[in-house]
């Protein structure tokens, strides 16, 4: 007998079969265009960063930030819609599927999406000659961890809000700055000192550090386990918040 969590995951995968063509463009083609324009174009002016070409330097950053964008984007309207429009969570809750099952199945789906995306991206960047270490194969794992760390709290947020206009604020004031100031396009040290801790609070920076260490074989700013633990803490905290938010919405 399949576990209810697996049944929830299956629903998401069945839905994804319908939509994958559109999403492949967004999640994979766009970062590649990014690499070409910024990595090759801007890179021509910038020269080397940290002893490697600018392209090789931003590859892990773009990889992590694309996981970040995907996990965040998937956790906004689709989650909100499954409460408001399709009421799919209400449907599931009327069966033996519990709130933790709904959320575990959802997190597994996000994990799979992010992992597949990161693996394809890794393959393409290998063709650009941008990977300098065999450890690069570990980078998708860091992306997967980042995906759950970001998706869990945003899923909870999407379950809490009463109107989808909050997502615009989330994208403008949280997601955008996180992407710009998390060491994706330039080293964190370039920032004013007071801004550095703010950037470090973002889960994205920690995943960028891990990915960069993996693809370039370089050292991380903090010990690698600490970066991973920080991401895990976001995932666990977000999950707990999401369980509470979903219960409140579905069980009263």
């Amino acid at each position: 007998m399949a576990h209810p969590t697996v049944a929830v995951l299956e629903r998401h995968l069945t839905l994804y079969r319908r939509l994958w063509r559109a999403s492949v463009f967004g999640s994979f083609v766009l970062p590649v265009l990014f690499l070409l324009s910024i990595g090759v174009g801007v890179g021509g002016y910038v020269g080397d960063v940290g002893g490697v070409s600018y392209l090789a330097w931003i590859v892990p950053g773009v990889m992590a930030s694309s996981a970040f964008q995907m996990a965040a984007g998937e956790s906004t309207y689709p989650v909100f819609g499954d409460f408001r429009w399709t009421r799919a969570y209400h449907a599931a809750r009327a069966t033996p599927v519990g709130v933790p099952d709904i959320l575990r199945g959802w997190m597994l789906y996000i994990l799979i999406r992010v992992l597949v995306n990161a693996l394809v991206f890794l393959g393409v960047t290998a063709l650009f000659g941008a990977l300098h270490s065999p450890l690069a194969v570990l980078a998708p794992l860091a992306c997967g961890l980042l995906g759950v760390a970001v998706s869990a709290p945003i899923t909870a947020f999407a379950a809490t809000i009463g109107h989808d206009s909050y997502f615009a604020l989330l994208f403008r004031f949280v997601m955008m700055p996180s992407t710009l100031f998390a060491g994706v396009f330039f080293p964190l040290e370039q920032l004013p000192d007071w801004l550095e801790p703010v950037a470090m609070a973002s889960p994205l920076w920690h995943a960028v550090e891990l990915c960069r260490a993996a693809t370039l074989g370089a050292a991380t700013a903090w010990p690698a386990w600490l970066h991973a633990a920080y991401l895990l803490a976001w995932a666990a905290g977000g999950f707990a918040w999401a369980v509470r938010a979903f219960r409140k919405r579905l069980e009263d």
Partner: protein
Amino acid sequence: MIYARGLVKRFGDFTAVDGIDLEVAPGEAFGFLGPNGAGKSSTMRMISCVSLPTAGELRILGMDPARDGTRIRGRLGVCPQLDTLDPDLNVRENLTTYARYFGISRAEARRRADELLEFARLTEKAASPVEPLSGGMKRRLTIARALVNEPDLVLLDEPTTGLDPQARHLLWERLFRLKQRGTTLVLTTHYMDEAEQLCDRLVVMDGGRIVAEGSPRSLIETYSTPEVVELRFGLEELDGYAGKLEGIGERLDVLPDRILLYAPDGDGAAAEVHRRGVNPSSVLVRRSSLEDVFLHLTGRTLVD
């Protein structure tokens, strides 16, 4: 199947269900009748084990929803008031995906989906997306989905609200078929004809309380007369006529747009109206219905 004593549901200061007692036996078709806001849906949510009672005792299939919610839900079929179908999945996938929630194997889910598509008369639509289906088809699909785990108890929250008459009759016919198979049905409705068609027994709810209980027939016998005469009088003030009609039949009600006379013999009462020199613009003699019971019990009509 269901046993409730002193069941209460409060949301903050608002009491949605205010101490109700219920018992539903296996094979019975049981109805909750009442206007919007009477507490029917809150009661249904407690029975379907997604919302726990604030107070009182509740047993579903002999189990306690607070402890065995998951096990109970595994044996229930729930057809919610608002459609919860997956618009991006096709008709068949809606059934198979939902079957998996009950731990049913993929092969078995496919087999049951075929069977239920047949039952819901949707076999030709199996590969169609959900969105273009008519309201009646979507409802039938929702009901088919509620049957995918072969439930012991099927809960239907306003199954035909918003459907056209033809779609309603087809749905009733399908539900009647279920009832004949011995499935226990519990439904809420604010349609009298639906309750009369489907329910062996029903309770009338108003303001979170049960105000009457019985079979449709016995409720009509207890709270109404066999026949009702409806009198309409154009645009004039109705109260003036009420005095002239006093004493005809057992009782009369003055509604905003008509006067109802309750009488064992409707034709006789209508003749008496004319004999007294009262000339309504229209006279309708009909059988008494649950609508009259509800009007008598609560002083209000059901659907305004």
